[in-house]
Structures are given as structure tokens and as C-alpha cells.
């Protein structure tokens, strides 16, 4: 699991992802816990203020992208500001042993949990022919 949020300049594919998030004024990198358990990789991210409808998770070219939009419910003049309502964005490069079709995610109390099943790779045996 390699951090991919800050894309390299060379690869144009990630540049588009960066451009996309740049259109919003700013975005946060949500803090995450990542661990392996029971043959799956679990990503837990703190995304307070995010609705299920506004959460976007996708895997493209082995890059897991988490996009989440917050809905600012507050109105009026801000008196004390320790956090700002912003969108969350984070990317990780996955190893190739993830079953991309079986990825599931749940959102509860502002915590996003993503389950990424690990595919057991069948080890290929190469027969050595006797000449």
C-alpha cells in the first residue's frame, strides 16, 4: 500500500485526478488505518461530515481513490474556526493481488471502512523438460 495522493508529474493519468480535486478550493487527506486481516486489506478513514451519497470510491489501474464530499450544514458568521468543511481525497497504490471486483465499503458515524479482498495467487509451476 503506497501513498499515491501526491501524484508524480510524469504520469498524466494521475494528473487528471489531481486536477479534479484541485477544482475544489481545498481538500483534506483523511487519516487512515490500514491493516491486513483474514485475507483482506482493510482501510479505515476518518471522514466526519460525509454522507453515503457523497462518497466515491474507485479503483483504477491499481490506484484506490477515496473521494468524499462534506455537506456544510452551518450558516452564519464563523466565530471560532478550528476546522473547515472541506472535501476529502486520498489515493493509494494497490499491490496487484487485490480482487477489484469484490471491494466493499461501509460508512458509519463518519468513519469509512473499505474491505479489499486479497487474491491468492496460484503459483505457476514450470515443468522442466528433460532433453
Amino acid at each position, binding site marked *: *500500500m503506497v501513498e499515491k495522493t501526491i501524484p508524480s508529474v510524469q504520469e498524466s493519468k494521475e494528473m487528471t485526478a489531481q486536477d479534479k480535486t484541485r477544482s475544489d478550493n481545498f481538500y483534506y487527506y483523511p*487519516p*487512515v*488505518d*490500514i*491493516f*491486513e*486481516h483474514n485475507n483482506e*486489506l482493510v482501510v*479505515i478513514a*476518518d*471522514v*466526519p*461530515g*460525509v*454522507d453515503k451519497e457523497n462518497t466515491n470510491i474507485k479503483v483504477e489501474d491499481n490506484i484506490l481513490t477515496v473521494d468524499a464530499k462534506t455537506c456544510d*450544514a*452551518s*450558516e*452564519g*458568521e*464563523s*466565530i*471560532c*474556526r*478550528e*476546522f*473547515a468543511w472541506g472535501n476529502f481525497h486520498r489515493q493509494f497504490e494497490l499491490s496487484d493481488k487485490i480482487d477489484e471486483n469484490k471491494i466493499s465499503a461501509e*460508512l458509519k*458515524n*463518519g*468513519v469509512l*471502512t473499505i474491505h479489499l479482498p486479497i487474491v491468492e495467487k496460484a503459483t505457476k509451476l514450470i515443468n522442466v523438460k528433460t532433453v
Partner: protein
Amino acid sequence: MNLTKLIPWNWLKTEEEQNGISAPIQRRDFQTNPIMQFHQGIDRMFDQFFQSYGFPSLLNDSALLSKDNMIKPNVDITDTDKNYSISVEIPGVDKDSIQISLNDGNLTIRGEKKQEKEEKDRNYHRIERSYGSFQRVLSLPPDADSDKIDASFKNGVLIVTLPKIPGAKSSVKTIPIH
């Protein structure tokens, strides 16, 4: 010109006091002198500005000084004509484990953020989130109606709404001279 009007209400007064910020002996005129109050207000404003970008507080080293390792969740306070609204970021906390209490003009929000399920055979790649007890204490301004506090919790954000007492705004009484 009334300088006190320029000084915003310090919602974090109690918290600062608890952390011993105002513990050093302050000269009396330091507190009553409007220029010095204004100075403190500016200090606080700058401090809040830098804190919003993740800098540690320059006025209180609460992160370094806190003895009990309490998590201090982020708080936003907004002001409309009718009420004050306090938003607290507490992702991963159950609604039932949040305690909101009011004592002597201080609103205390506390609770515990529990780890989902603790299992030993986890091979961690990254741990960035934190768990444990959290607490925030907010000093309520005099025009907040503490009898009508309302709180809602949605998607990891707690929103406490405090209606303003109508008419309380004019706390400055003008006394007619006969």
C-alpha cells in the same frame, strides 16, 4: 469608541484556564485596560488562524501540557442572528457515548472514541487515526439560552445549537442622568 465591542467572546476561556494559561500572575490593569484586552484579542485571533492550518497553539501548549492525553476534537462555532451553532468533529464515536453537560456557564462535551474491534492478528501497514477519550469545554456567552440547548449527531459531526436570548444583546445599560 467602545473597544470592548471589538473583542470577541472567548469561548475557550475555561479550557485555557484549566490548562493553566492564565496561571501566571496578571497585573490588574492588564485585564481591565481595554488596549491590553484588545491586544489579547488580536493574539487570540492570530493563534486561531494559525491553528486552523495545523500549527500548535502559541498561546497554550495544551498538546504538550495535557496530562491525561485527552483528544481535543476540532470545534467550529458559527453565529447567526437567532442562534449559535457549535460543530464538533468526532468521527467513529457512537451517539450514545457522547455526554454533553452544562455547568456554571461551561458546556462540556466528552466521550470516548473506541477502536472498532481489537484483534491481535492484524498486520498493520499504517496507523494514523487516534482513539481514546475526548473532551472540550466551551464557555458560553451571556446571551446564549442555556435552557434551550439542542444537539444532533450525524455522520461523525456533533452539532450543538444554542438559541440567543432575544434582547440580551443590549447588555450595556445606559443610565439616564437626572
